[in-house]
């Protein structure tokens, strides 16, 4: 049809969109940083950077697990409820010490992840429905265990939430360490390769003899465990357990971070660096709008536009 005449133009447009998809998120972060440096008073302070980083840490940790789930051509909607469940378990087991409580919370996340994984891998339920069921039930369970907000008075927890090493908060260190671990797992381990192969084409992976079910279960266990860790950290930072509101809409923030970071929803690719930048981008965007006294409704609309742009760029890449 018009391919001959438009060949060059489409190729250029294609390259542009590919660049946009791969590096757009980093460019967005840089632009927002520069713009804020110029236009926002008191933006360039260590204190402000600390605040931003501490706020983004739990979202980032959840997004790491979400990136694995999306890379396997799935999704995990239960992450917000897992955070709520984890905060309830902390309150329940705090009497045995903060470590035991945190361990109980992570075990709770792993159990939810096992249930997700079993439904998806063995029963063959679509990820969106399986994790939806666990999302509803998980939030309910969290509220059954701890019906209302409760203060967490524990020096260990408080130290975890507000302590730092050389000025870098523990929360940020933990998030960074987890991001490095997940990036290593995705790029350098057999499990990572298997995960990407399954996300690319599950039938092909099965025919190639990959342990599809085992890998899928591990993916959702990782996602559950990471969400639980995020729940522990959020509880430590707030020094309170609030199973009603902790983690609500977290699945959306995490999916946004992953998608904006250039991981395609069709699976087979995981971009951890992009996910980190995606989480930071959303955080910066929110801060920028709030610091300039724009109402929260704008933040949501802006976030919606960013998501659509990100998937639109990813689409062109996928079609090639």
């Amino acid at each position: 049809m018009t391919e001959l005449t438009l060949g060059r133009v489409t190729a250029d447009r294609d390259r542009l969109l590919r660049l946009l998809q791969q590096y757009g998120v980093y460019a967005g972060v840089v632009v927002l940083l520069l713009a804020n440096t110029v236009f926002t008073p008191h933006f360039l302070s260590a204190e402000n950077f600390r605040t931003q980083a501490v706020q983004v840490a739990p979202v980032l940790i959840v997004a790491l697990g979400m990136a694995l789930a999306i890379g396997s051509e799935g999704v995990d909607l239960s992450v917000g409820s897992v955070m709520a469940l984890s905060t309830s378990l902390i309150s329940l087991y705090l009497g045995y010490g903060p470590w035991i409580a945190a361990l109980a919370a992570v075990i709770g996340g792993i159990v939810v992840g096992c249930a997700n994984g079993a439904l998806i891998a063995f029963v063959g339920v679509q990820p969106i429905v399986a994790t939806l069921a666990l999302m509803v039930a998980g939030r309910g369970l969290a509220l059954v265990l701890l019906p209302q907000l409760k203060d967490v008075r524990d020096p260990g927890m408080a130290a975890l939430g507000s302590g730092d090493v050389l000025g870098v908060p523990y929360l940020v260190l933990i998030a960074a360490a987890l991001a490095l671990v997940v990036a290593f797992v995705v790029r350098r381990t057999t499990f990572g390769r298997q995960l990407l192969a399954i996300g690319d084409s599950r039938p092909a992976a099965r025919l190639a003899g990959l342990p599809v079910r085992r890998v899928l279960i591990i993916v959702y266990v990782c996602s559950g465990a990471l969400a639980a860790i995020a729940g522990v950290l959020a509880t430590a930072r707030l020094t309170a357990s609030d199973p009603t509101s902790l983690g609500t809409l977290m699945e959306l923030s995490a999916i946004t971070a992953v998608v904006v970071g250039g991981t395609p929803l069709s699976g087979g690719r995981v971009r951890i660096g992009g996910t980190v930048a995606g989480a930071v981008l959303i955080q910066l965007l929110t801060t920028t709008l709030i610091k300039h006294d724009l109402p929260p409704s704008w933040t949501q609309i802006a976030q919606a536009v960013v998501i659509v742009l990100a998937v639109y760029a990813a689409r062109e890449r996928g079609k090639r």
Partner: protein
Amino acid sequence: MTTDVQDTGKAAPSVNPPDEEPPGASRSERLSTLAQQHGALVTLVVAMVAASLSFDTFLTGDNLENMAVSSAFLAVVALGMTFVIITGGIDLSVGSLFALGGVLAAWGSRYGTAVALLLPLAVCGLIGLVNGVLIARSRLAPFIVTLAAMLGARGLMLAVTDEGSQTYLVDKDTFFATLGQGRLLGIGVPVWITVALFVLGAVVLRRTRFGQYVYAVGGNEDAAALMGAPVARTKIAVYTLSGLCAGLAGALNAAWLVSGVTILGSGMELEAISAVVIGGTLLTGGSGFISGSLVGVLLLKVIQNVINQIGSLDSAYQQVVSGAFLAVVVIAQTWLGRRRRVL
């Protein structure tokens, strides 16, 4: 599986409407089909009988009326969702559109009933249309497009209501308020509207060309396109329809509450999807029916009602039971579906 090729009158090759079994179907095959399609109805009847035996207050007029009216709004949302899910898609924006529709209706009610109804329908229908165009023409994933629409619509709703601090009221004496509060033959008007919409929806889905296209697109998009079905237009239509349904449900709800409450609708998309799935519509697309979604909605509401009646149980158990129930249903459906394929 090749026994019924003489059935050329059907627009969709991959569709076996529930009442037309292939002639070679064995008894157990028929049983699993039946269980998959009518399991929800049987469960609903059992649950209602058990509830009325256990609680004196369950089978009273007030309680039934309450359940019917509170089911009506979710049911209208689930109606649109059923069309979307049969095409193999999903619409996560309905909860936000429900809230937006309610707020717009309450705001518009001061200019008369027509504005109160048309404004939410126009705005929510337009957002649904945009969803459909992005999904069908730009080939973006329904999940992510409607997710963005969910955020965008909620943002829009907050912008309209001064960040959620403004609650518009509906004048009780207007005709619009009657649509929510009025009664006809002792039954609330929203219930009548819902029943009428479901009858209409069932006719459209089963007896019109558009309905057959919906099944065909969900059954196999490529095959549908090769047969000449307007795939993109059908998809755009179902997402627009879902937006319209959500907006209308929101408007009716606002009329019922006589105010545009801004905190409603979060999590509603999940309830609607649960209801549709429980009603026997497969998320893989190409198969499902309208009446099942109504049964699914009623079943969810009966579960909620029973848990409310057990006063000692916290309302959080509602969620645990609903979630567990959804899991059981999808496990059963997958199992039954697999059985049918093997046999």
